[in-house]
């Protein structure tokens, strides 16, 4: 017993070391003086930590703006995706309607589309939509919200399905008999019960939107004030010599908030994934 416990600990520590290493190296390189980064004798520590790279990144044009843009896009996607996916998941689990199977298959197939293959049609779609609906055209943050929202939905609905299905219909019926309206039932009874699922889907849609390069580069072509964080990062990649200190400092600023958020909801994540894998 004791020995197996020791072995479990050892393996867990080893696994943790491997998974954390790239992040550790990123943060370390962000605080290493420039000379040490280029050194041919790389050390896994530094005796002269510096904030020069962070100063350079934060002093670079518009980094704060890009950060806020990314946050606005990602949070909008999280909220909208949760609402739309919840409604859709409720419909496919509680109603029997024509085309229900077709709709489910469409959700599954939509999950299999490689986004890189769609950048050209999406570019034209967003351009044309911009003419009809203001705020979602090229160079707008709305276009990023729209596209990320749509691509996050199939998985979100799939995850939510398990949660909605797990809510006993008897509860809703009892509330209905007590005279509660549909909206009240939905908001006061079902919503709290499916909350862990919403956390998990929220985490997923957040990281894809937050870390996205491809859509940001496709749609935000000339409006630099509407760029997102990944664009700020690209500034430090140079054809002759990459500014690794800058890249790593920018990546650290980009990764740490997500990591903290992730760890904060870690417990709910396991519960949340439960809905997706139950079926």
């Amino acid at each position: 017993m004791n020995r197996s416990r020791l072995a479990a600990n050892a393996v867990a520590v080893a696994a943790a070391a491997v998974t954390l290493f790239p992040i550790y190296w990123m943060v370390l390189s962000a605080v290493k003086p420039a000379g040490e980064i280029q050194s041919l004798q790389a050390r896994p520590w530094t005796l002269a930590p510096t904030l020069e790279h962070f100063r350079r990144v934060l002093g670079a044009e518009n980094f704060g703006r890009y950060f806020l843009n990314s946050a606005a896009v990602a949070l909008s996607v999280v909220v909208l995706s949760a609402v739309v996916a919840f409604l859709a998941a409720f419909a496919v689990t509680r109603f029997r309607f024509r085309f229900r199977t077709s709709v489910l298959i469409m959700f599954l197939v939509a999950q299999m589309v490689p986004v890189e293959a769609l950048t050209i049609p999406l570019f034209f779609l967003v351009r044309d939509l911009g003419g009809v609906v203001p705020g979602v055209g090229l160079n707008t943050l709305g276009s990023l919200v729209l596209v990320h929202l749509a691509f996050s939905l199939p998985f979100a609905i799939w995850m939510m399905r398990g949660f909605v299905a797990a809510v006993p219909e008897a509860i809703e019926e009892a509330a209905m008999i007590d005279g509660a309206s549909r909206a009240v039932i939905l908001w006061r009874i079902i919503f709290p019960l499916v909350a862990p699922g919403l956390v998990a889907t929220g985490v997923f849609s957040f990281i894809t939107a937050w870390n996205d390069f491809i859509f940001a580069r496709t749609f935000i072509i000339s409006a630099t004030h509407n760029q997102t964080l990944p664009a700020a990062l690209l500034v430090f990649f140079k054809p002759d010599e990459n500014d690794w200190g800058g890249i790593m400092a920018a990546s650290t600023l980009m990764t740490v908030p997500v990591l903290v958020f992730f760890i904060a909801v870690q417990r709910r994540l396991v519960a949340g994934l439960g809905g997706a894998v139950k079926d």
Partner: protein
Amino acid sequence: MQQTSAPARAVRALAPLAWIGPAVVLIGVVVVWPVVVMIQSSFLKISRFGVVQGANGTDNYTKLLAEPDFGGVMARSLVWVVAVVAITVAISLGLAQLFDQRFPGRRVARWALIAPWAASVLMTAIIFKWMLDPEVGLINMILRDLGLLDALGGADADPLGNAATAMPWLIFVAVFVSVPFTTYALLAGLSAIPADVYEAARIDGASRLRTYWSITLPLLRPALVVATLINVMNVFNSFPIIWAMTHGQPGYSTATSTIFMYILKGSDIGESAAMSVVNFGMVIVLTVIFLKVSKWKTEVS
């Protein structure tokens, strides 16, 4: 007993629409419509600058199939998806089992496991590429200090520049970024297994291996199927890892179907669209085969 008027029935028939409508419209317009355009353009002749020059019949497909690298690319995509998913699932099964036990370091280890998931896949790939750099790569320096590498800067110090070593490194990075989600999905599956079945097995005197094989694995199957399925789709369509680390080079030796599609976009948009359609078809076929093999349907009903 229940009497409903025609309008009421119509309202009831339309009710699901209000719930599912937003999702269907969004996915229809933003995902399905571009797919339709992609399929259409695979039958069009398109100039390098994106000007449509008319119908092209199936010429794009004929040209694609005649590409000398096409067979290799497709075979490599299959190897890529099977290797990455199989290794990911095997490691995740072990880790999930481990993290389901109670031991002092569990919480911290679980936190650490989240890290590669929260980080951007592209950044992870860039960091690994940097660590494998022939001149200044950390991994090469460690190998040199261990005496496994003669000197920095040479061909030996460039694992990504060599077809035989580049692919294993790419697979390693793909596994690295896929393990966290998979392990968490399996952990969720494990936590759904009631403790009393284990208790019963223990009383029956079943060995640990026996218990795992006959109780844990079958009960874990729904979680395993879903986690594997999501991995198959993601890995097959994965683009940033290979693109950031090798661009599919040397030659086309590390190019999978998505990379090949992207490369073709630079020379012939119609042919690239044809490659996208082939890619899409492959994912669907793989998914169907997987669902058949895993008897997903029977699991659900």
